[in-house]
């Protein structure tokens, strides 16, 4: 099966493959880095990686094969670093052949999109989210929905919930939030990249969900914020833990990381305690081995990897993130990421000063 998987990865990373041959020579040629993983930050990574190549001459190639694929690739040591939307659990970390560290690179959110003609503002509380997504409320003119949205003319229209049909980090963040705010959801559905849905229909990818919602009146679903912002899709205000109804925006997403973050940055930011935060927000991470001297990697290669990641959390790169509709990391998170990068070693010696 490993051969089978490697084959698929090889196809995806076809253009990046010549790198492995270069790894061991240190003839002063430009170093090239190979990475694979999450599709959620793909537009940001494409932009930032290209910029970095122009700036430093280090070629960075990235295959958007999904978070699961990113973790597998790092485990098989076929990439310099992986990318994932969900941090590795303690169990998963123990399965890796070496110690792995997480570097947050930017933030995104999951927005609730809806298609209701004539409705410009929709406020959803936790209780309503639970009832809509678990099929207890089936019509938009429900009394509870109306009570929560005074002055909004909610039509007599059947609710159709559209979820992702493919496994996705977007689903993971969404279900993580639902698990935190709804006991019923936690008991019956839980958290994961794909779920056993109580109601609704599936569509593939953010474009699939957004397309289905736009085509069906009365449809509601969840979409990655970067896609929703780029397409200017109408989104609902969601109630955060302070009771405020917050519209997702670059600022309200960044606010979710204002609170306490653990030193290894492995934290789900959903249901943040910050009163200005949009509650369904989260980090996306790059993962790499803490000791870079493995598999015959040269010091040059290790240095290029860490230097590049240090640039990714710099102000310059973070400004690029906002350009493609991701929320930049707040200062506290940047400091933690820099500290982690300074703990990365090559044969026991730290690489960055």
């Amino acid at each position, binding site marked *: 099966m490993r051969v*089978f998987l490697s084959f698929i990865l090889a196809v995806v990373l076809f253009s990046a493959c010549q790198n492995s041959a270069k790894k061991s020579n240190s003839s002063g040629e430009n170093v090239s880095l190979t990475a694979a993983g999450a599709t959620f930050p793909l537009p940001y990574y494409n932009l930032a990686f290209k910029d970095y190549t122009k700036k430093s001459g280090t070629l960075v190639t990235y295959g958007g094969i999904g978070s699961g694929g990113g973790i597998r690739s790092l485990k098989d040591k076929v990439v310099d670093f992986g990318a994932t939307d969900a941090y590795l659990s303690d169990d998963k970390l123990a399965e890796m052949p070496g110690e792995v560290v997480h570097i947050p690179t930017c933030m995104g959110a999951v927005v609730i999109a809806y298609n209701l003609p004539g409705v410009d503002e929709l406020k959803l509380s936790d209780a309503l989210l639970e009832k809509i997504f678990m099929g207890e409320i089936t019509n938009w003119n429900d009394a509870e929905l109306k009570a929560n949205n005074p002055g909004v003319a909610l039509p007599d229209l059947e609710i159709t919930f559209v979820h992702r049909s*493919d496994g996705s980090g977007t689903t993971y963040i969404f279900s993580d939030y639902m698990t935190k705010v709804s006991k019923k959801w936690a008991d019956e559905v839980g958290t994961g990249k794909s779920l056993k849905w109580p109601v*609704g229909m599936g569509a*593939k990818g953010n474009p699939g969900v957004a397309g289905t919602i736009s085509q069906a009146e009365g449809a509601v679903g969840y979409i990655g914020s970067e896609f929703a912002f780029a397409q200017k899709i109408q989104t609902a205000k969601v109630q955060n833990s302070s009771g405020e109804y917050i519209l997702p925006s670059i600022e309200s997403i960044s606010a979710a990381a204002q609170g306490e973050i653990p030193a290894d940055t492995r934290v789900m930011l959903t249901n943040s305690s910050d009163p200005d935060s949009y509650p369904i927000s989260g980090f996306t991470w790059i993962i790499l081995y803490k000791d870079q001297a493995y598999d015959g990697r040269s010091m040059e290669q290790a240095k290029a990897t860490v230097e590049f990641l240090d640039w990714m959390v710099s102000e310059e790169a973070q400004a690029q993130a906002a350009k493609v509709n991701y929320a930049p990391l707040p200062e506290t998170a940047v400091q933690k990421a820099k500290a982690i990068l300074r703990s990365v070693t090559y044969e026991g010696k730290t690489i960055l000063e």
Partner: protein
Amino acid sequence: MNSDKITKTVLFSVSILILMLAAGMLYSLVGGAIPAFKEFGLKFIFSGEWNPTEGEEKYGALPFIVGTLMTSFGALILCLPLSFSTSLFLGEYFRGTRVARILGLLVDLLAGIPSIVYGLWGFYVLRPALIEIGFGGRGFGIFTAALILAVMIIPYATSLSNEIISMVPNDLKEAAYSLGATRLEVITSVTIPNARSGIVAGYILAFGRALGETMAVTMLIGNTNQIPTSFFGTGNTMASVIANQFGEADGLKLSSLIAIGLLLFLITGIINAAGKLIIKKMN
């Protein structure tokens, strides 16, 4: 070595290569599917539960097997009247005329349209049209998927049947006419009995194509991982669930998806074998 021998060697090695490709595919499918069958046993095939939630993972292929068979048989039934009349039109009534040539060309053109284009057309045109004429809900489901599949497999069923029907010897038909048979009687008692194995082969080819179709189905079927409750409800097919879930799958889930791939491989094989048997019996 003479040229005859060279040709023989080349042809032999090429066919061995094809055989090895099929065997290799089967080998990796079986290898990948082992963990799933070890965990669930034969229940994997008969269980309707598909729960990917970590900690309580349970995978059963039945919803997708049922979905695949429902969409494919549905497509076959829906395409039958259309493609059969078309092949009679092309191969019998208007054989060799310019109208038949143009129509035949257009039917073959249908086979060349990429699946994703059918999917988009189904999503933006066919589905709203279905809602317009009074199908309930959002227009997504088994029926819509079967309808688009029916359009996609028409050229496969038509081309072969039409070819075989036009090959029925004229002597036979003329003999029937000279006995006073009407055109309809000639078709039902001479043309169809003579061409039936070829016609059946065409429909088996078409059915096989419907079984494995992915993109257009994914866009229209609604992708719910449960056993479909009705022909108009939503569901999912084997090919569609693999395409959807493969990217983020690992461990037991990945193995279960590969196992579904293996089952699809086997079902396609069984249907082809059954078709061959039917053709043999008919002759």
